[in-house]
C-alpha cells in the first residue's frame, strides 16, 4: 500500500509550481538559494541566481536584467531597491522527494536483513553434503545429494539416488557436483548407474536392489495428521510436498499417515515414497556440533572409534529421519520395513517391497517423527523383476572451465579422494550407450562440517552427552529452541547457499 501511495505521490507531483512572493525580507528568506525573477513595477525583470537581502531596503544579487520589452539585457551584480519591486516569482520544477536510485536500497536492505538473520542463526544456513545438478530445460536442477549421513571419515558410505527424468544428450550425461556449504567434501567416487527401462519404471529399493515396477496405484484415501487439506500433494511426482510442523514440546513426537489402496489380490507389491527431510534433522546435527564447541575434533574422532557411540547416534538419526511402514492384515498393523532419511536437499524416490497381498484392498501406515519429513509422492506398484544396473565411470571432469585430469584420476581411483571446498563446482561427464534408461547416481565419501564462530559460544558438554545418551530428554529440551526458528528455516537455508565470489 505504501508503494502505491509513493507512486501516486511521485506522479501527482510532476507539475511545475509558479509561486509569487511579496518583496520583503521575511518572504525572501524562505526562498534562500532559489533562482528568482524580480518583477519591477516598471515592467523590467531581473533573473537572480544568487542574492541576499542586506537590509529591508535593498536586494543585492547576481544575474541578468531584462528591459520592459525584453529586447535588452545585461548580466552582472545588481543592487535593487525593494520598494521598486512589484512582485517576486519563483518556479519550482519537481524532482523526486527521494533519490530514485536510493530506492534500490530497500530491496538491498531486505537482502542484507535476510543474510544477517542467517548469520545470527547459523543453524538455519545451507549445509549437508555435495549437491548434484543436471540440466533440466534452460536451468540446472538439483537432483541428488550425496552421502548426507556421512559426517565423519568413520561414517564414509555409499549413497544411491534416483535421477528422475534424466535423459542423455548425444550419448552423454553431464552432472554438476557442487560444494555449496561451509563444508569440506571428501569424495571417493561419483558413478552413474543405468538400468534399461524396457517400458517400465525402475526404482532402487531399501534392500539395496533395483527393481522394475508396473502400474503406479494411487491411494483412494489419504489421512494426514496435520495440513489435511494438502494431503493430495502426495499424489503427484511434482516436487510439491506435504509436510507437518514439529511438536512444540518434544521433537521426537511421532505422527502417522494412513493410506488405502484398491489393488488386485495375489500379486507382489511395493511402496514408492518420494521424500526429503525437513530441516529438523539438520538443526539437531548443527546443534550437536555447537554443543561440542572446541572439542568437536576430539569428539568426532572418538565417535569414529566407538561402535557403541556410533550405534547410539545412528539410532537417534534413524528415529528422527526414517519412515516406518506398516500394512494392515487380519491381525492388525504389521511392520514391513523402514525407509531411511536422505538429507534435506533433493527429493529421493525409494522403493520398499511389501510382499504378496492376497486381498483386493490394502491399508498402509507411515509412521515418522512429527515435522521431520517432507513427502512428495506415495504410490503402490506391482513389483517386477530384480535388475542389475550397469555402472559407468566418468570420462572427463571440468573444473574452473578446464578439463582436469587430476580430478578425473582421483574419482577413478578407488583409493584416493577428490577433496572439494566451499564454492567448488565440478562438471562430471559420462558416456552412456544408446537406449532408454533409468539413471541413478552412486557416490561415496564423507564430509566435514566447518565449525561456525557463533556455534562455539554454545559449547555445552552436558547437553551434548544428553543428546547422545538420553536423546528423548534432549529432544524435549530442544523443542522450544527449534520452534522459534522453524517457520523461517527452509527459506533461510536455501538462500544461504555458498556461492564462490
Amino acid at each position: 500500500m505504501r508503494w502505491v501511495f509513493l507512486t501516486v505521490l511521485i506522479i501527482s507531483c510532476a507539475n511545475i509550481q509558479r509561486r509569487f512572493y511579496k518583496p520583503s525580507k521575511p518572504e525572501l528568506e524562505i526562498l534562500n538559494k532559489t533562482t528568482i525573477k524580480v518583477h519591477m513595477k516598471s515592467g523590467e525583470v531581473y533573473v537572480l541566481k544568487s542574492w541576499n537581502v542586506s537590509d529591508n531596503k535593498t536586494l543585492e544579487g547576481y544575474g541578468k536584467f531584462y528591459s520592459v520589452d525584453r529586447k535588452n539585457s545585461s548580466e552582472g551584480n545588481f543592487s535593487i531597491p525593494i520598494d521598486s519591486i512589484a512582485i517576486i516569482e519563483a518556479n519550482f520544477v519537481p524532482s523526486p522527494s527521494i533519490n530514485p536510485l536510493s530506492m534500490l536500497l530497500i530491496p538491498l536492505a531486505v537482502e542484507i536483513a535476510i543474510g544477517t538473520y542467517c548469520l545470527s542463526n547459523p543453524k538455519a544456513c545451507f549445509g549437508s553434503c555435495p549437491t548434484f545438478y543436471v540440466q533440466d530445460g534452460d536451468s540446472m536442477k538439483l537432483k541428488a545429494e550425496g552421502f548426507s549421513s556421512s559426517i565423519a571419515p568413520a561414517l564414509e558410505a555409499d549413497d544411491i539416488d534416483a535421477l528422475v527424468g534424466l535423459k542423455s544428450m548425444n550419448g552423454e550425461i553431464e552432472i554438476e557436483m557442487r560444494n555449496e556449504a561451509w563444508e569440506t567434501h571428501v569424495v571417493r567416487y561419483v558413478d552413474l548407474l543405468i538400468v534399461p527401462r524396457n517400458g517400465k519404471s525402475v526404482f532402487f529399493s531399501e534392500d539395496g536392489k533395483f527393481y522394475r515396477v508396473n502400474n503406479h496405484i494411487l491411494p483412494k484415501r489419504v489421512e494426514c495428521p496435520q495440513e489435511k487439506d494438502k494431503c493430495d500433494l502426495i499424489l503427484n511426482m511434482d516436487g510439491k510436498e506435504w509436510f507437518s510442523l514439529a511438536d512444540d514440546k518434544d521433537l521426537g513426537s511421532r505422527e502417522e499417515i494412513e493410506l488405502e489402496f484398491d489393488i488386485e489380490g495375489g500379486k507382489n507389491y511395493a511402496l514408492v515414497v518420494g521424500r526429503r527431510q525437513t530441516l529438523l534433522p539438520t538443526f539437531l546435527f548443527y546443534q550437536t556440533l555447537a554443543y561440542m564447541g572446541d572439542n568437536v575434533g576430539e569428539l568426532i574422532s572418538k565417535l569414529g572409534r566407538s561402535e557403541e557411540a556410533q550405534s547410539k547416534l545412528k539410532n537417534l538419526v534413524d528415529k528422527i529421519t526414517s519412515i516406518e511402514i506398516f500394512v494392515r492384515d487380519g491381525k492388525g498393523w504389521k511392520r514391513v520395513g523402514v525407509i531411511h532419511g536422505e538429507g534435506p536437499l533433493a527429493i529421493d524416490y525409494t522403493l520398499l517391497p511389501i510382499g504378496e497381498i492376497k486381498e483386493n484392498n490394502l491399508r498402509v501406515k507411515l509412521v515418522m517423527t512429527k515435522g521431520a519429513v517432507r513427502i512428495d509422492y506415495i504410490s503402490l506398484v506391482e513389483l517386477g523383476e530384480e535388475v542389475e544396473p550397469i555402472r559407468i565411470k566418468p570420462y572427463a571432469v571440468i573444473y574452473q572451465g578446464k578439463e582436469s585430469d587430476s580430478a578425473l584420476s582421483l574419482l577413478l581411483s578407488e583409493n584416493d579422494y577428490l577433496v572439494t571446498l566451499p564454492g567448488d563446482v565440478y562438471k562430471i561427464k559420462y558416456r552412456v550407450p544408446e537406449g532408454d534408461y533409468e539413471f541413478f547416481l552412486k557416490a561415496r565419501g564423507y564430509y566435514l562440517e566447518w565449525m561456525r564462530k557463533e556455534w562455539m559460544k554454545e559449547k555445552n558438554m552436558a547437553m551434548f552427552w544428553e543428546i547422545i545418551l538420553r536423546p528423548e530428554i534432549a529432544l524435549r529440551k530442544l523443542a522450544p529452541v527449534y520452534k522459534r526458528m522453524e517457520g523461517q528455516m527452509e527459506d533461510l537455508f536455501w538462500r544461504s547457499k555458498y556461492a564462490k565470489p
Partner: protein
Amino acid sequence: MLSRKFVFLNLFLLLSCASVSIPESEKLPTPTELPGYPYGAFIAVRVKDRFINGEILGVEGNTLYVLTTDDKILSIPKDKVRYYNVIECRHEGYKGTAQAIVMLGLSVLGAVSSIPLNGLLALISGSLWLFTGTIGGLSIVLSSNPDCYPEVEWDKLIRYSRYPQGIPQEIKEKAVNY
C-alpha cells in the same frame, strides 16, 4: 525581443488542433531553464474563426494580452475566447531515460542474483527488486519530464504571463483589439 517565436511540441497538436501553425525559430524553455526564463508562457487561443498563438503578456480583468508569433500585441476579450491551451515548457527529449534504464538494469540484476542467493525467498526479494526498479525508473522519467501543458483557469492565467505584476502602460498602448 517582441518578435520571439516558439516551437510547438507534437503533443500540443494533439492537445489543441492541427490548424495551429508551427513556428521554427526559438524554443520554449526546458523545465530546467524555466526558473530563469524572463518571458511568459505560450498560449494558443481559439477565437471564433481562428487560432491566435503567442506569448502571454498579461491579463487584466476580462482581457488577455498576447504577443503573437507575427509580432503583434493583441488584446482579446474573454467573451471572444472559445478555449485555449497553455504550454509553459518543452520536454527535454529522453532526459532521465538513461538513468531509468540503469535503475531498471540494476533491479533486474538484483532480481536475477537473488534467485541463486535466496532460493524460495527470491520470489519475494526478486519481486521487490523489480517493483522498486520499475517505480524508481518511472519516477525518474516522470520527474525529469514534468507536465508542460497545464490546464489553467482564466483567473490564473496571469501567473503564466510575462508581466504578473500588471502590464506596463507602454506595452498596453501598443495593443490592438481583437
